[in-house]
């Protein structure tokens, strides 16, 4: 059976038997770096194409279908175009911050990649505060957006960045609270343990009502956190042209664009890990036969399947709903999502203490 775990184990033992442990560690780090950069590139291409196809089909169009078979090479061609373009820096811009911002946003996205378990035993860094690490690091991305908005010396960018700041800071609360409600159930912050605790069923099903509520809140909050429509206040092209990245062009723009999609992937991966069992196949209680059949599907396919399902949901939101207004956006968070998620956390605590979950 195909298993990523076997490959990593094999590489690991081979490296350590042929080199000194320090060299082996360095080589392993290099491999991880290359792999994560490669993953980023591929994800960017795939997700952009997926978004365009999803959008097209919802809008009774065909979408890209000229470059390559079924338009598969369209995003590659787009990337090539962006690479060729000149990365302008406006005259009045704060040069250092302006050029730094796209890299900061990418670095943040890369950092969050660390604790995500892509398959059984295939994880960069299984640190014991995985979930906390993710919530902590993801909030840095707002700094990059503020940097970009401030440094552009453009009023649209400035407004977009300010909106984005208010939005991300507030939505982090309910995203955090809904994550915590799962942590309450598992009693651990470690990603691998959270996944392990779902061996006999995903938390979405095991935790029933409070888990479903926190899943919905999580989805809404992360949509807002990644600045996606209907919460794309930071860009809001009919109001602010392109918001915080109005002044960016060429590859610098591409990094922002890429980071948006990587962030979607990451938050969906976290959602899949917490609520849908990560790489854990669909197991139902102690139906041994059923569970065994499900185990035949490789764990990486389970993980990516779940993640892409969530990504599809977020794309579905984007292509259906109108945008909220900035004050309504904050109203939604502070008047609806936050009270509900706090109440839900309480409910979850009661459920966990009384052992009412399955």
């Amino acid at each position, binding site marked *: 059976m195909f298993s990523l775990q076997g490959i990593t184990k094999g590489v690991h033992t081979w490296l350590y038997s042929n080199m000194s442990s320090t060299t082996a560690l360095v080589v392993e780090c290099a491999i991880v770096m290359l792999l994560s950069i490669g993953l980023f590139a591929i994800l960017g291409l795939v997700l952009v194409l997926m978004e365009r196809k999803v*959008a097209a089909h919802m809008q*009774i169009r065909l979408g890209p279908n000229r470059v390559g078979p079924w338009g598969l090479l369209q995003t590659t061609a787009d990337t090539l175009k962006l690479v060729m373009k000149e990365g302008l820096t406006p005259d009045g811009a704060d040069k250092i911050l302006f050029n730094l911002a796209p890299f900061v946003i990418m670095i943040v996205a890369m950092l969050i990649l660390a604790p995500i378990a892509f398959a059984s035993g295939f994880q960069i860094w299984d640190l014991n505060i995985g979930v906390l690490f993710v919530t902590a690091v993801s909030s840095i991305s707002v700094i990059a957006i503020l940097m970009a908005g401030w440094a552009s010396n453009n009023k649209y960018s400035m*407004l977009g960045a300010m909106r984005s700041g208010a939005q991300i800071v507030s939505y982090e609360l309910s995203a955090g609270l809904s994550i915590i409600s799962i942590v309450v159930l598992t009693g651990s912050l470690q990603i691998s343990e959270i996944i392990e605790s779902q061996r006999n069923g995903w938390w979405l099903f095991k935790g029933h009502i409070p888990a479903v509520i926190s899943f919905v809140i999580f989805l809404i909050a992360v949509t807002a956190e990644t600045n996606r429509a209907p919460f794309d206040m930071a860009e809001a092209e*009919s*109001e602010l042209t392109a918001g915080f990245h109005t002044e960016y062009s060429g590859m610098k723009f591409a990094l922002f664009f890429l980071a948006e999609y990587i962030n979607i992937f990451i938050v969906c991966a976290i959602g899949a890990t917490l609520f849908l069992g990560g790489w854990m196949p669909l197991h139902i209680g102690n139906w041994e036969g059923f569970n065994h059949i499900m185990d035949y599907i490789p764990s990486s396919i389970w993980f990516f399947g779940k993640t892409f399902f969530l990504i599809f949901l977020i794309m579905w939101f984007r292509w*259906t709903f109108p945008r*909220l*207004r900035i*004050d309504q956006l904050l109203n939604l968070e502070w008047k609806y999502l936050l009270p509900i998620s706090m109440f839900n956390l309480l409910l979850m605590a009661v459920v966990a203490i009384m052992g009412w979950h399955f």
Partner: protein
Amino acid sequence: MYTTTEILEQKIQVAPTGELQDTGDLVINIGPQHPATHGVLHLVITLDGETVKKIEPHLGYIHRSIEKMCESLSYRQFIYSTSRMDYLSAHINNHACAMCVEKGLQIEVPRRAMVIRVLMDELTRIASHELWWGAMAMDLGAFTPFFHAFREREKITDIMEESCGARLTMNYIVPGGVMNDIHPDFQQKIKEFITQFKSKIYEYDEMVTGNIIFQNRTKGVGRISKEDAISYGCSGPVARASGVRSDIRKLYPYEVYNEVEFDEILETAGDSFARYMVRVREMHQSISIIEQLIDNIPEGDFQAKTKAVLKLPKGEFYTRVETARGELGVYIISEGGTTPYRIKFRSPGFSNLSALEHMAKGGKLGDLMATMGTLDLVIPDIDR
């Protein structure tokens, strides 16, 4: 020292003492190249945070001096250029001009031509409202309705293409009637369209009207009272949303409008949602008008016999019609020659735009987009 840009953008103003001073306002330019303005409208907006303090429309980016051009064109020729004013209701513009010429020459238009004109008018109105519906949803950030609206609109443009020969700037109406007879498939096609339209219109409610986000974005936004709507000279759906009776088709019926039954849609709220509802309900009324007329197109000539060279008698002539955006008035002063001495178009968009500041002041930046979307501005109509 202040830069020219800063002064132009009114960031700097002249103080009563005569010195230049920084007002501390955040002035942003919406347009002339901006995704929200559907054209080259330029709004200079003073913001206080997210709140709009002042709106100043700058016009003239697409001014082609159509009125002046018409002075050198004959009475047959000038009609075509009015298609380029409010290009979404091009047919209705042509209609207004042809009616004015007919009024001057006292041409009796055959009944068949009148019915065809009204049918085309209502089709144009639906097509225009369809496009507005999609574009307004796009202003509010929903992209999908735009494409769905175009699906139905495409059917109308197909009908137009078949009978008139063009899809947008038809130039189908000539003084005395219409240019060609309707296509043999005309009635059939329209019936197909009505069936399709009726099966799809409920989706509009599902996707936009009922949507909680849309309702929150538009209800209570961009409100204008009845009195203000009258004093700003608003017309069309904008005025009717505030409860002003302004439908020219009802108040001053022309052609066969006094023989068909339809309601003048009136709302009282005067906000963006009311304007939205007026337009959506108007589409239903237009469908009803088409249904009443489509099987009753009388036989006869499609064009009255007219002289080769039209000469309006000396005098002043005024006609008005209800376009998709409001009241369009055509005012011709004739000196008795083959070309008009002066032509003035009273376009609905200009007056409606003038009420924008009143509507959107004090709202958020997002409200401005919602208000602008429901005003249904067509910039060439404002600038001409």
